[in-house]
């Protein structure tokens, strides 16, 4: 099933079967874990569905917003949202939204990603309880 997409006068065909299954699985994982699915949805749409990045940047955000809104309200009605913790986390995140881009200008994005790769690998192995990890 291909979906015809028009974007700024150009035409694209998006494979919606892959989009639906991929989006669903990413949404389950991200709402189970409690994080936004951005870093997964963007590669899903660009690499697997073959859409150019300029089509994806805004549209992926819209798709993720559906997931975040639904999962947040589900957690809230399950009584699992600590409002104080939420406020503390939100203040930190909003402040980071102002400071982050300013620092980002002075750093090489490739090196930031390399550092992040190492850090996230370490954290992942630690969560998996791999032995010999301090």
């Amino acid at each position: 099933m291909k979906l015809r997409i028009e974007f700024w006068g150009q035409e694209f065909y998006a494979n919606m079967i892959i989009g639906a299954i991929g989006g669903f699985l990413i949404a389950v994982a991200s709402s189970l874990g409690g994080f936004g699915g951005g870093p997964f949805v963007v590669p899903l749409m660009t690499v697997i569905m073959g859409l150019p990045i300029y089509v994806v940047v805004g549209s992926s955000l819209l798709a993720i917003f559906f997931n975040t809104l639904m999962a947040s309200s589900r957690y809230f009605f399950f009584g699992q949202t600590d409002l104080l913790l939420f406020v503390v986390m939100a203040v930190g995140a909003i402040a980071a939204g102002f400071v982050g881009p300013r620092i980002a200008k002075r750093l090489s994005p490739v090196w930031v990603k390399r550092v992040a790769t190492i850090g996230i690998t370490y954290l992942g192995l630690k969560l998996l309880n791999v032995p010999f990890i301090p």
Partner: protein
Amino acid sequence: MRYKFKLNLWSFLLFFFLLVFSKNLLAQPQGNATKPEAEAPPLKIELKADKTSFKGGEKIKLTGKVPEGYKVNFIEITSKEKVQVSRLDRKDFKFYLSKEIPAFYQIWINEEYIAKIDKNGTVEEKPVKEIYQKYKQNKKWKIGEFLRESNANVAFITPPKEIKQIDVWKSTVLRAIIGSRGIKLDPLTDKKEISREAARLIQTRLKDFEKIFVLTKIKNNPDGTFEAEITLPGNAPKGEFNVLAVANKEVKSDPIQLTHQISFPTVYFPVAGTSTNIFGPLILSFAICTFGVIMGAGGGFILNPLLILIYGLPHGVVAGSVMPTVLFSQAAGIYNYSKIGFINWKLGIGVGIFMLIGGFIGPLLNQFVTVDEYKFIFGIILLILAALLFWQTTPGYLEKNKKERAILQEYLKRAKEAKEKKSS
């Protein structure tokens, strides 16, 4: 003749006397045996603390008097703050949930206590120290088994008394797929069942064996007085705590109240059930999210596991509190992109509907998994993310990305210009 009569009279009186009082004489030993139960005020331990309010880590001295022949073996500490705890029993797929689980619970055990286990009539004795060591090393320990084996169940008093309702669902895979907890059954009513399940929910919440059970020295003096020292951690909830001293099933003290005082910057997170310095999570959130913004992926990936590893918060609360924080930045982003016509609504809503369904199921699965399973799933997600990030630093990707980014910038520029033309 007369004498004989007299004798008979005496013997008659004696007989009569025996008849009247025999009941008492015979009943006496029986009455003694049942006395402690039958008589209204049973033996009580007197319990006193050297302070009424305390701070985290502060030593609290408990003193008091025990009835003759008994020793204080257990001290039970229960917070009056309640949290919601749920768990899925993997044996029968029943889902239990209670909103009345104490946010903090401990039983302190006298290290010299010798536990008695009744095994088919023969009583076996075992020092509680040995049992404690055995359970400490067992990662798959079960609270019910330990309570029985160590006799600490005689001190498991307050939770079954305070917990009035435990809801039960019968879960099936099919029901979970449509996002339901399962078929709702009647809540637990039987006192024994509530007590058993309450213990399991407490284990689910506090998890670590050594966080719930503590071996300590309780000094029982020959004159019947006793002394013990307890300390509660700084992350214990604020407010009142119930403290009970217990000798055995019948002999215990009345509860005394202690208040945990916290002052800013330490705050109590009511749903998470933990007190902590507010600047800790704030700085953590700021640092991680800044890093997240720089690398172009949100902060939740790193923030959630760290909140669990550092602060030991329940995974459901972490997910439920961090997830909504990105709502605003996402909404702002959507607004900004839509202003310059940079959102394809067909694509966004098309994929978004399936993500909506996924977002309906995920939080339910979060309730069904244990902390260890959550960590496992999260670990795998992080490794996939790391692989994605690594791929994004390879030369081939960078070259392609450079071209695409240039096109993106060009389009963004044109979109902005078009918008300015329209508005002017």
